[in-house]
């Protein structure tokens, strides 16, 4: 089995939420002021589907015998989620974002709504997430076992905190854009998640059917990058005029 697919992040819904107000980038937690909501229709949209060619590598099975509480959450042997493929070679868990083209100096207020990262069944949900600088990341432990949550980052300060029981919650925020911050649990070496940290709301994570949507883009020419943990990155240039919707598909080669 390819595992349950969690590709749409809570925070993704906030893609339509953006503002041109100034952003307090240094604040470790999100500013309490609610983000101004701009009409998404006012901007352009990029949609697309992500596929891959070739044969997807098999996700290794996870031996959860050390963690009975996690193992009990699965009917069949759980696997890692390195490559989550949908029908017709659709590729989920691809982080798509505007790498360049947003005018320098334009700042966006981070939503106060947290992106939630849940540890459930000794796996991360979602496996790939996008988050804005300053937006709260709420890390939940649904498992009655010890997890440590380690962020490995370069532009941001790394952290490593522990959650030894179910119901524990830790909230963190990132201070600088970084694609990607690696999140991992060292108690369970198979647990990996990836966070794309962006200064603007123009990003998405591909769904189970490989689809993604980035909306609210002001007119301009953008470099769009698609990132996948195993297959690397792809870029494309898209020009948006007015409120038009453009299609930009990406195809990765399996490796």
């Amino acid at each position: 089995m390819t595992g349950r697919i969690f590709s749409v992040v809570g925070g993704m819904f906030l893609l339509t939420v953006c503002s041109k107000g100034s952003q307090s980038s240094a604040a470790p937690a999100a500013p309490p002021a609610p983000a101004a909501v701009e009409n998404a229709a006012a901007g352009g949209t990029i949609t697309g589907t992500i596929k891959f060619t070739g044969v997807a590598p098999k996700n290794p099975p996870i031996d959860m015998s050390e963690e009975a509480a996690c193992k009990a959450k699965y009917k069949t042997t759980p696997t890692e989620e390195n490559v989550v493929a949908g029908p017709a070679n659709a590729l989920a868990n691809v982080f798509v974002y505007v790498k360049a083209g947003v005018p320098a100096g334009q700042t966006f207020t981070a939503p106060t709504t947290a992106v939630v990262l849940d540890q459930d069944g000794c796996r991360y949900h979602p496996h790939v997430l996008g988050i804005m600088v300053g937006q709260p990341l709420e890390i939940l432990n649904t498992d009655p076992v010890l997890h440590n949550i380690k962020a490995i980052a370069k532009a941001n300060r790394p952290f490593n905190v522990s959650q030894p029981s179910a119901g524990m919650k830790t909230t963190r925020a990132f201070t600088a854009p970084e694609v990607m911050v690696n999140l991992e649990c060292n108690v369970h070496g198979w647990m990996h998640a990836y966070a794309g940290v962006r200064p603007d709301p123009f990003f998405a994570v591909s769904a189970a059917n490989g689809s993604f949507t980035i909306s609210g883009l002001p007119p301009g020419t953008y470099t769009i990058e698609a990132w996948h943990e195993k297959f690397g990155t792809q870029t494309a240039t898209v020009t948006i005029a007015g409120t038009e919707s453009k299609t930009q598909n990406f195809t990765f080669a399996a490796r």
Partner: protein
Amino acid sequence: MIHALLLLTLVATQDTTAGKQIYTKWCAGCHGDNGAGDGPAAKHMIPPPRDFTGAVYQIRSTPSSQLPTDADLLRSIDEGLFGTAMPGWKSRLSDRQRRDVLAYIKTFSTFFADTTQRPQPIKFGNAPGGGSGAEALKVGRQFYDSIGCRKCHGDLGRGDGPSAPTLKDDAQHPIFAANLHENWRFNGGGTVEDIYRRLRTGLDGTPMPSFGDLIENKFLTDEQLWRVAQYVRSLSPKDAPVVRDVVHAPLTKSLPHAPDDSTWTAVAVYWFPLVGQIIHKARWFSPAVTGVWVKAVHTADSIALRVVWDDRSQSPDTSWLAHVGRVFATLQSDDSTPEQPAPWPDQLIVQFPVSIPTGMERPYFLMGSSGAPVYQWRWSSIARTAPVAGLARGIDRFEPLSSGGPAAQAVYDHGQWRVVFTRALASTDTASQLPFRTGRAIPVAFFASDGSNGEHGSRMAVSTWYFLALDEPVPARVFISPVLAMVLTLGLGMLVVWRAQQKTSYRRQQ
């Protein structure tokens, strides 16, 4: 005003030129010219030297993710980091030099120049009293389990937990969960306060998380976290072990063959440190076995030698193969073709000379030479009761002997090997198998390999020569002679007194 200007100038010149010179001379060899932890010596170290460019530091007084304070960094520079290649510089560099180099190290990362990053040390009080009492240790043990310490550090704390083989640092280098029985090797110090601080701050860049949030989340109280620290401290001896050169083997009535025979509890223990074999190729810079604990006894005709050492894995163990791969990827190999990980066994070698030397001359400690061989007992975890006796003529020449070797019994228990070797004192083959004699200093050395750390062949941990002394039974005359002498002295004295009295009374009569 002028003073203030002078002061400003002084502060400004606490820079970086002076610091750079010191850094280049003393630090760059390991930490690299650009502070990336990639100096020429870096490929011979696990753990590798700190990469200063990320400003991620293990030993801090600040919460996880914060920068360390200057005092934190200075402490590591001054004292060094125990259990690693980082020495203390307090006695080698002046106060000014150490401050200068500290200022220079901080220039490798932009985080230190970022004014929004202000390290705030965690404030905490003193350890609650009664920390070594049974009740406190019980509470500590309870939370050791409930906060999951055992996952990496193991049930008895020897760094052998179920997750131990998978551990990596941020740069994917292999990393051991600390053996909590060796507090003298804890990077940030081995006191209860040091351990408590590590629990609060975590060791950033490593798998060790911060447990500070647990107090805020009311999962445990501050006192209970202190109890964990006190429990962890209780696992190590009161004082770090000190090397005493001579293992004394007392005389016993019967020979304890089993490692956990109750006879051993009353026998004195001796500790010998082991270091990587870095003299002959293939050299080994990352030994997993840090020392051996040795006891010995003998009877009228036999000797029993008990060697105990901590080893995180009962090798061969395929669950450690990925760890071995990471070790090989981190260390620069002597071989031109990188070696492939394999499930090697654990090994222990006890080495003696072929005969007890009469003078100070001993064979070469590192397995003798072609002209002057050494007599060895080679034990392996895949033949636990059948150690092989033989002659070594250099590190790569070993000639097994067909008979007359020792017997052995071994126990592996929660990250620890305990092996007892037994052999007759006399030897039928005195040319190659050492006859043991009482009352003589018999040279002895130890070698250990952890197969699950990639150790085999010359890749092992070694000791130098120490001595084994079979204490002679104290002969009866030792106890009788003084008594006899006392009786005789008393008798003679009384005789003198009696004679003197006789003479006096004789004179009086005259």
